[in-house]
């Protein structure tokens, strides 16, 4: 066990591991690229949907049920399906990652919108704000803490799941896991897993810090 940890430490810190086209630095950037693009695309799709449902309170069942749907979705199966339908490209991976991100963001955005005090939206309409003004000047700013929580959750899930890019022969930190498994190189598998975990935790902490600084003026229960 100690030997394994020592090997792992050597693997993670060896300068040779970090350089070159298959080095950790390149894989890390690839992984971040997949994850951020997928989260961003997920947000672009999910935010308007969540805001629309939250503002109009129509199709609320969609926002509520989407969460369960997202959890039940077999990611690897989806990758394989899109791969079989569309051939080898990054598309299957992005489709799977976006499908993972969208439900979390929609559900949290909707939850944020419904958590806005109805007295406040009533007052907003009562002082003469139009529908879009109520949405963008009042509801969205107030829902923002929960919206950001949704983005955080989506991002962590996407970062940990982006390893499947390697499953269909692309890069990212998943490369080490799949290659290590194929080569029965446990240290490499562990190294890849540790790196993915560290990236996920660091991103989450960064987003949490951003959230804290953005909402420091809110009452404690609404951050």
């Amino acid at each position, binding site marked *: 066990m100690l030997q394994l940890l020592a090997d792992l430490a050597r693997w993670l810190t060896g300068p040779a591991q970090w350089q070159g086209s298959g080095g950790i630095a390149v894989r890390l950037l690839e992984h971040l690229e997949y994850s951020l693009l997928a989260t961003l695309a997920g947000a672009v799709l999910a935010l308007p949907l969540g805001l629309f449902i939250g503002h109009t309170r129509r199709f609320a069942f969609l926002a509520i049920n989407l969460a369960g749907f997202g959890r039940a979705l077999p990611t690897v199966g989806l990758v394989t399906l899109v791969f079989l339908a569309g051939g080898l490209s990054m598309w299957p991976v992005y489709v799977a990652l976006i499908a993972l991100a969208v439900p979390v963001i929609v559900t949290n955005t909707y939850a944020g919108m419904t958590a806005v005090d109805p*007295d*406040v939206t009533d007052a907003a309409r009562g*002082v*003469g704000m139009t529908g879009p*003004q109520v949405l963008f000047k009042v509801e969205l700013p107030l829902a923002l803490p929960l919206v950001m929580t949704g983005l955080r959750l989506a991002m962590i899930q996407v970062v940990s799941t982006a390893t499947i890019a390697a499953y269909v022969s692309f890069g990212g930190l998943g490369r080490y896991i799949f290659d290590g498994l194929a080569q029965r190189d446990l240290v490499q598998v562990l190294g890849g897993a540790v790196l993915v975990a560290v990236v996920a935790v660091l991103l989450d902490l960064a987003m949490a810090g951003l959230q804290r600084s953005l909402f420091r003026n*809110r*009452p404690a229960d*609404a951050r």
Partner: protein
Amino acid sequence: MQSGKGLRMISFEAVSKHYPNGTTAVDDLTLELPEGGLTVLVGSSGCGKTTTLRMINRMVDPSAGTVRVAGRDVRDSDAAELRRSIGYVIQQSGLFPHRTVLDNIATVPLLLGWGRRKARSRAAELLERVGLEAESGDRYPHQLSGGQQQRVGVARALAADPPVLLMDEPFGAVDPVVRTQLQDELLRLQRDLRKTVVFVTHDIDEAVRLGDRIAVFRTGGRLVQCAPPARLLTRPADDFVAGFLGAERGLKLLSLTTLGEAEVPHEPVTPVRTDEPVAEIRVGGNGGSYEGTQGNWRVAVTPDGAPVGWLDAGALPAGGTAGDAGLLPLRPLRDEDSLLAALDESVSSPARAVARVDGDGVLSGVTGQAALHERAAVHHTAAATAEPAEPGGEPGAGGGRSGQEVTGTGAVRTAEATS
């Protein structure tokens, strides 16, 4: 405001509101609210008073009938634009928690496109106007007390200087002491601004205290009676209104009139100064008559002449000054205090009399219980037998309310009632 006399600022013409589930919130309401008046809509919950209020700024659209503001059918206006021209205050204030107090107040001016600078300077002006310190402008709503939040709510509603102010149980969620302060503040603002105010409450005492006119609603959304408070109290239209007003209608009526208005007389007395040696106090009067008081009770005053308590001249200690003797509490009354306050004080006074003070708080005399009762009864009879004002609006509601103090609302009514 001469332009306001008798002009109907808000009118309901055969207005009903039915909901798809079969409930009727407002049933065939016809009501006219005069410009510059403070009309209170009162009734138990579910009587349609809030719906009535919300139909004025189109937060609710009527199922039938027409609502007009300044003569114009509200349906002809864009809802958002209409609402910007009408102040709106709700219970729990409805302030925007993510904006500073100043930004909250500046909301409507900004929506109207005033520009940031002008809107903020106007907001600062209103902050002061509603009795808040300039520093609170940079705070966030959750950092203020409930009463302060309501003040901000009122300031936000007034920011663009709308002619109409709608208030939906604005003081319902604050404690009684703060509520009284906020009511005083509203009356003070209303004396200066003379908005057309529609105020919803379920608290009849609040209605009597604030309203120029009170509209009583009953369950099912029916308006039962709309009249000035004195008229409502002396001549309730039916048992429902009488029941709603409660058993102490006579006392509530007394709360509407001040000692000055009712011309309650007082007799001069020679008080005892608290620094006066006990030995020099003579039992049975000290040059002044104590008619109206019972026993040997004397008014003790500070060297400045401000009454501080009742002194029993029949049971003085052996030595020391009058201040050392046990004084019984006394609440000095000004001409601006209500008949009800005076009656209350006379009941709890050991001398069965009240001490009256002038504007500087210096003792001006005492009024005995009998004289007080006499004036109260005369006043009550006058109010009960007064002819009803012409329909459509109380002349007083549009005319100037000239009183210098809070209970001055009664001044105009009494003048009408007795003239």
